[in-house]
């Protein structure tokens, strides 16, 4: 199995990026787990859970006889300790925001050695989903560093194998800097299959650090790795055409949504007059609707994803069948509509000497702006090139600026010095709640105008209200209805112009059994404890 780079840490309290989470997910376990195939919750470390009639208290009962990978038993104190860590402001755990419901942190109480009660300040639609991905930590290893204030420093990759423990199917064996991370089977793992065999089946899981997607493909082709995931469409095509002893699977459209957004931040002191002039266009709803109408989404799916993707008109990707608003209009590309909208908004056109037309704003200035895109993401760079050509047909002069991804994020969220940007976000749960920081005007991922003190526009205020409302609604039908409305408000105002959603593409050697990639992260390792290698194959541990 290749990993795009070294994980930054083994400590779930400070892990923020995808590849670190992927490694941590196989070494740790959560109380309640979301099954990646059915997208529903199922019991994990907690054998069962009960919700009080008012929806505020969750009582979880732990399984009996569970041991950490170093043989120490798990009890309610570990759970209490774990949540104290996640909620401690000084620890800066990225999960903390999720555990604050109704403005107050969740209160955790111990009833007996195996029963824990979670008290919420406000009822929360799908409280049990909160527990997914929250790794339960070993108190016997972490309490001392916590008291010494060194929690952020431990759990580096160089940690000795006997100094680290989790409840997941695998435990740390060896780490070779710059090359690989070797995990071995956790002998104390609590799951067993229907026949009573202890899981996991595989003895060793090796993550090779391969920084580049093409190199990962070559390693997979040469048989050095058994599985490959997060493939681009082109490489998937290459691999499926030259199939030699491996199977390539298309799990269908995933939850990643790619979109373009304009800079709608409130003008500050440093905003140049030129930027203010441009923002006048961007603030015009009809301008954004015109851009959306001019986008050739079908071409994006075909040329960028080679047809292995889905065109997108809203934040909820079609891979998320339960939550997507099916009534949302999917207007086909229409340059006439775009031109009408622009005309209504006071734009006009002038004809150049060579028959090319230029879009002018109401002040007679040509409409020119640049779109940022991450230089490391070839797919989005391609989308930008197509978008550039689409908008040229409306007379807009667009430049594509590839930037290194960190300076891109810095520009969008900190200095706010940009015109427009193409980005992609992958939801990690089918449920809408993890996406709230995109929806809420106070959210950090409300990219077009992040972290507002008060919603800047009436429609942002309405979305805020709807999202808060759906969080406390009790039934799925109620939530879905409110959430559908929020999607409609977003589609009317087009602060994000949605483009496309790629399929989840993965592959494995034919010798790998139970290989069922899912559209949720971690795409191929979600059922890692059930993966096995068929007998009679060489190099069985890879």
């Amino acid at each position: 199995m290749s990993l795009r780079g070294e994980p930054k840490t083994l400590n779930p309290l400070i892990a923020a990026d995808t590849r670190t989470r992927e490694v941590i997910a196989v070494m740790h376990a959560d109380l309640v787990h979301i099954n990646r195939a059915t997208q529903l919750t199922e019991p994990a470390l907690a054998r069962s859970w009960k919700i009080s009639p008012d929806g505020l208290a969750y009582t979880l009962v732990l399984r009996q006889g569970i041991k950490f990978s170093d043989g120490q038993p798990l009890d309610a104190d570990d759970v209490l300790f774990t949540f104290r860590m996640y909620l401690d402001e000084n620890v800066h755990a990225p999960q903390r925001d999720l555990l604050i419901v109704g403005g107050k942190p969740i209160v955790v109480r111990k009833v007996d050695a195996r029963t824990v009660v979670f008290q919420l300040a406000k009822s929360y639609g799908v409280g049990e989903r909160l527990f997914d991905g929250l790794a339960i930590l070993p108190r016997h290893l972490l309490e001392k560093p916590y008291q010494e204030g060194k929690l952020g420093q431990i759990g580096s990759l160089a940690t000795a194998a006997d100094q680290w423990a989790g409840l997941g199917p695998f435990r740390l064996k060896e780490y070779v800097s710059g090359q690989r991370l070797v995990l071995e089977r956790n002998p104390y793992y609590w799951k067993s299959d229907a026949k009573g065999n202890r899981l996991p089946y595989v003895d060793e899981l090796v993550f090779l650090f391969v920084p580049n997607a093409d190199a990962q493909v070559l390693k997979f082709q040469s048989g050095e790795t058994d599985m490959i995931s997060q493939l681009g469409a082109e490489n998937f095509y290459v691999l499926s055409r030259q199939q030699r002893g491996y199977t390539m699977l298309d799990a269908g459209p995933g939850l990643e949504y790619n979109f373009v957004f304009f800079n709608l931040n409130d003008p500050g002191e440093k905003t140049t007059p030129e930027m203010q002039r441009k923002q006048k266009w961007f603030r015009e709803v009809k301008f954004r609707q015109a851009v959306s109408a001019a986008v050739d989404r079908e071409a994006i799916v075909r040329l960028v994803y080679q047809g292995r993707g889905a065109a997108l008109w809203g934040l909820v990707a079609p891979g998320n069948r339960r939550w997507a608003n099916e009534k949302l209009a999917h207007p086909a590309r229409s340059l006439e509509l775009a031109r009408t909208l622009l005309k209504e908004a006071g734009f006009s056109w002038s004809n150049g000497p060579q028959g090319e037309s230029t879009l002018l704003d109401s002040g007679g200035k040509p409409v020119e702006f640049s779109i940022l895109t991450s230089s490391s993401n070839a797919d989005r760079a391609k989308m930008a090139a197509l978008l550039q050509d689409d908008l040229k047909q409306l007379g807009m002069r667009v430049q594509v600026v590839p930037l290194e991804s960190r300076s891109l994020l810095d520009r969008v969220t900190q200095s706010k010095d940009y015109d427009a940007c193409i980005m992609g976000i992958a939801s990690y749960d089918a449920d809408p709640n993890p996406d709230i920081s995109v929806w809420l005007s106070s959210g950090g991922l409300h990219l077009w105008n992040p972290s507002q003190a008060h919603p800047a526009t009436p429609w942002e205020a309405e979305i805020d209200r709807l999202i808060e409302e759906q969080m406390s609604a009790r039934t799925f039908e109620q939530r879905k209805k409110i959430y559908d409305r929020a999607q409609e408000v977003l589609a009317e105002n087009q602060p994000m112009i949605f483009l496309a959603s790629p399929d989840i593409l993965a592959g494995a050697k034919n010798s790998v059994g139970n290989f069922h990639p899912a559209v949720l992260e971690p795409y191929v390792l979600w059922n890692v404890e059930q993966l096995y290698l068929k007998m009679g194959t060489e190099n069985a541990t890879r």
Partner: protein
Amino acid sequence: MSTRRTFVKWLVALGVLHGMVVCAGFLAPYNPVEQDRKSPYLPPTRLHLADANGHIHVRPFAYSVRLRVRSFDQYEEDTTEPHPVKFFLNGARYRLLGFLPCRMHFFGAEGTRIYLLGTDAYGRDQFSRFLFGGQVSLLAGLLGAGLTLLLGLCVGAVAGYYGGWRDSVLMRFAELFLALPWLYLLLALRAFLPLAVGPLEAFFLIIAVIGGVGWARPARLVRGVVLSARERDFVRAARGFGASNGYLLRRHILPETSSVLLTQAAILIPQYVLAEMTLSFLGLGVPEPAPSWGNLLSSLQQYSVLVSYWWMYLPALIMVPFFLGYLGLASSLQERAEAYKIETSSLGSLT
């Protein structure tokens, strides 16, 4: 005499190749940035003489192609109607030599499109992109080399002729330049520049960067030649007759450096055309969708393109005669210089 003949031969060959690039608008059938979204990664159009019924045509013709159902890049020919290749027909607008508005193209076909080198990921004609890209890349290479040599000549002549502290300062400075980690400095430079750089600004930027980075080596070469020329008998004699420094430099010393400079130019131009590719990678090159040879080559960095679409190599192959032309010119210049018995020792470092 034979060295002179090979020299002329190379010069003519280069002239023809550059003439084709200069007349890109006429020779290229299509607009280089136009996307034909129905045919991404279309292999080069096949020209036929015999049609599906076995009839022989005098004029070569092409069939229109369409995507196979449920496929992304597999095409099939529609053999119902042949589209003969036509010459001198009207098509996309362009400006010949940069100013004459024109619509006539050398070749093309009605009812279908002829892609001599196939198309890229967006269905753009590779042949048109190659020709138009050559305009950008070769001009940037020529001007960049010119700027480099001008800077090198000035610095080298001053250092070599006046000597003393000027020599030490300039040469230490040149050595510093050779030792700098350019990649990181260019990255820093990119951060200082405005976000969006237009194609024209990018073009001048490339020339400035190339010229600014490359001057140190030719400066050292020129210094060596000047240093030895300064001590020649005829120079000493002229000085004895009271010739001024400016006169000596202009009349006797700088002419001595001409063959070194020309040889350098012939080597530097192909180098700089390739340097533009590196700069594109750093975000300092010609921005897409404007074509340049660097942009054409950069699509080859993808593994999937390398193994799937052989025609994407073709632009790289056609660049070879251009570079070969320059290198041939350089070697014949070098032979000529040896024939004139100019210090061969200073040329040793060229290889």
